[in-house]
């Protein structure tokens, strides 16, 4: 339990925040919804043991709001899952993201937890990651001296590691609106029906033309060390004819691909067969719906 004090700062706008970060050290951390940070501090987890200053970013208007910018839906980094769920644009244009957000934690968690907070830790079980990956999301990052936008894929480096520097903040997540020809789905498996850490997540988005896969994007979470696109699998699928046989082949290929990436772990004995099975089921249900 924490007994040394922590200072908390409340920048009112982005430039104020950026100047706080400009000479930041490891002892300074951002707090958004706090659903990870607060327990981390309470339980003195390694990531927070040296934290002396917290910067609350909830009152910065520039990193809030959901709007369309240049054919992309731009989601403020500090948007909560509840706000995202209430947004019609998301519901209509990014149904997979909507579904992933609705599966996170409980109402209380969704009322606080933010979208950037979900992937900045790069935990393998972050539910929005596979979905954002198949939507080809990009991340806007700012510091006092620079501004950059990179793909989420690049941003996520390894388990609990990202490209973010201590003087930077994620400001927005930008998601190209997929063409209406794309169909897809998000799948999450937990041990319970609610408030459940993901055992497996899958996101699939595909464009089928005349029974042929024109483009397919596949990402997994919780079965790979970090949420990741399965590009080998995507390449294998493109141009192939859609049928039951092929779905089975593709699902088995996913099994091979995951073994390559993840190796065998204590949980593989269960997760490997199940991820193939449920990927197949997911493909079948997407096909069914697009008929």
């Amino acid at each position, binding site marked *: *339990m*924490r*007994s040394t004090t922590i200072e908390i700062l409340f920048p009112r706008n982005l430039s104020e925040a950026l100047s706080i970060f400009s000479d930041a050290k490891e002892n300074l951390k951002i707090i958004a919804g706090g659903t*990870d940070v607060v*327990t981390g501090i309470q*339980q003195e987890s390694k990531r927070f043991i040296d934290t002396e200053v917290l910067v609350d970013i909830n009152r910065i208007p520039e990193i809030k709001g959901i709007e369309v910018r240049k054919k992309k839906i731009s989601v403020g980094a500090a948007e909560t899952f509840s706000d995202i769920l209430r947004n019609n644009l998301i519901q209509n244009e990014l149904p997979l993201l909507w579904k992933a957000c609705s599966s996170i934690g409980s109402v209380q968690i969704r009322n606080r937890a933010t979208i950037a907070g979900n992937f900045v830790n790069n*935990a393998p*079980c972050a539910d929005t990651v596979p979905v954002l990956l198949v939507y080809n999301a990009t991340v806007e990052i700012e510091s006092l001296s620079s501004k950059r936008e990179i793909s989420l894929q690049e941003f996520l480096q390894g388990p609990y590691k990202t490209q973010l520097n201590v003087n930077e903040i994620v400001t927005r997540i930008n998601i190209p609106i997929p063409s209406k020809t794309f169909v897809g789905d998000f799948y999450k*498996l937990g*041990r*319970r*029906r*609610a*408030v*459940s*850490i993901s*055992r497996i997540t899958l996101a699939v988005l595909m464009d089928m033309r005349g029974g042929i896969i024109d483009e397919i994007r596949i990402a997994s979470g919780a079965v790979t060390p970090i949420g990741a696109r399965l590009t080998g699998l995507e390449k294998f699928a493109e141009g192939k004819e859609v049928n039951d*046989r092929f779905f*089975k082949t593709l*699902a*088995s290929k996913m*099994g*091979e691909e995951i*073994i390559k990436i993840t190796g*065998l772990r*204590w*949980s*593989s*004995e*269960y997760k*490997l*067969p*199940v991820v*193939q*099975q*449920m990927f*197949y*089921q997911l493909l*079948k*249900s997407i096909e*069914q719906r697009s008929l």
Partner: protein
Amino acid sequence: MNKEFSVVGKRVIREDGFDKITGRAKFADDYKFDGMLYAVMLRIPSAHAKINSIDFSEIENNEAISAIITSADVPGIKKTGLIKNDQPIFCDEKVVTPGDVLAMLVGNSENELRNLVKKAKVDYTELPLITDPAKALDQEAILIHPDNGSNLIVNHHVKKGDVEKGFEKSDHILEQTYTTPLIEHAYIEPEAVTAIPLGFNGVKIIGSIQNPFTARRIVAAVINLPLDKVQIIQAHLGGSFGGKDDTMCILSARAAVAALKANCPVKIRYTREESILESYKRHPYIMNYKVGFSNSGKIIAMKINIIADGGAYASMSPFVTWRSVVQATGPYEIENVHTEVRAVYTNNPYTGAMRGFGSPQPIFANESLMDEIAIHLGISPVEIRKVNALKNGSITATGQKLENHDVNLIQVLDKAIYAADFQNKWRANKKEKPLTKEFDFNNPVLQDYQYVEPDKLIQKGIGLAVSYRGCSLGAEGIDTASAYLSIQNDGTVYLLSGLAENGQGMRTTFAIIAAEALGILPEQIFYLETDTSRIPDSGPTVASRSTLMGGGAVRNAAEILSGRLKKIVKEEFKLSEEDVVSFRENLVFSRKKGLTAKFSEVCKLAYSLGINLATIGYYKSPSVHWDEKSGHGDAYFTYVYGCQVAEVSVNIGTGEVYVNKITAVHDPGTVINKLGAEGQVYGGVTQGAGYALFEGITTEKGLIRELNFDQYLIPTSKDIDVIKPVFVEGKDSYGAWGAKSLGEPTLELTAAAISNAVRNAVGKRFFNLPLNLEEIVLGKKLCPQEVKRGSLQ
């Protein structure tokens, strides 16, 4: 009972409801006192170790510490326990389970103490671990409590007829082994207690204490004061389910030792992690069942061998396993029985009383087995049970003849199968072959045939289980209860019983019983705070005995006082000797003259006449007897019966089991409070579903993996769809108008019914609870090698 009741059996709002719904009800951690200090525990991350030394030199002069409490500060007995004194208040020589506490820091900043405690240097030597109860009795096994001579806590047996001859006469023999996991009570309120020193008057303790009288006995012995110098007050209890007994007694004792040393009030409150780490749990059982039966399904012989993991301390193990040995053959009349139950010491978290108390485990085994027999013979689960069911006049496995109450087993079974349309659904869902696919871990890439057709992914199933349950303590102990009742001169009433409210609504039940007997409303009854200084000991609030025993005492008290009032009415209103006076709706009636007076007028009158309107009522159970040597006897003076039907959907791809419906038919005797009774069913079934599907504490090198609700999963609002309670109110002559028990029967059947439903859905039998994802898909459990928290896993 054809009596017309005015409040009994109605939906009555609980008497403590207002305080609870407004947030005003005070739970243990809500009490604060001037100058109050906190105590924080010192533990080591080991399940079995010899303590060489504890060095406080780095912190002992720290200003934040008012006192360091060790075993040396304990003035009285240093080891305690409900049955055997094997549990140290502070472990200064040896740690035998990960929850063990070595010492305690006392000071006014709990946070600082939690940091400082990490700086105490403990030098210890790890000892070999025993975590597998099946190995605890091996010759070479290290002794956890060397003075006990072995790792055996207790050994019970029941013998009837001759099983070996029975097997010879049988047409078929089946033998199976079943296991159940270690279960956390998971009351939402963690433990908390405050001890307040009272100078010459000893100590006062307020806490989340399930059994105030047990706590008083243990605290008094530990601080070496007479019983009257220890006053225990029970705060509102945030759930217990049998779990706030031993742990709370020891925490109370530790707080008392600290309060007396520091001469300040001292509070101990646990985090969820500490609660799960140190509190006792439900026993894991390993159960071997061998059964012989005829072609017609008549069971001829049953041989049962059970090992119960008692963990590091004996706690209630001797009584818990006694109930198991009595009931292990299920509610069936079997000619030849040999049951043996052994509870053993291990380095696992210790186990004691938990809702069900030694019944959920054998019911899971026995009711799974009954279905297997039915499937083996090609008959239905209903038929196999009817062939063997206990009836009026049947002789149980312990040689007891069932009489003096309605043996309603077949009635509850019939009602349940009708309500759930069991027979049709069971036949329609029945699978001849297992549907789940076998996987080969050496070839983890799926073959085409291993993919499931989407419309076959979700399989429905239905299953049932029945039970009988002995009421109250049985031959485990002396069984009496008392209640204090005092009528005021305006017709309002004070009530207090020596049994304790655990959140189950007991006080409301008692208020209803008193109200019924006095012809007034439950709202007129004010239930006093449970305080050991004001009421005689009524024994523990366990074994679903409160309604039966305490209810009997309340009724007795109410009838004593109503007798006195009736006498006055007859004299004052000059009624004849043979006239009958009755109380109803706050009015007093004479059979001959009709309405005679208001209840409050009669009370006032009694006061003016100097009649004593306060009394203590008693209830003593009819005698039961038990011969431990032969394993024979009238184990309990009466029994209740239940049947639950589970309907499930199983995802054969992932192993998810969803409970669509539980139909729960119970005979609790007379239902006193309908609302409370239904609540017991919903709550018990939900806990039972958690037991069936995902709950379980596991350990790695003796250390617990699931220390909070992110890992120890209990059912949420979304995990069960429909629960339908049905009551069959059998007649009984005991207690208050034949009101018996319900709290535990509701829980004990659910896992067995769900497991049978899963068998019906997927065509495969599962022998090991919980039926979690891995169990269904792989037929085994998987656990990580490291203990990590939360999302890191």
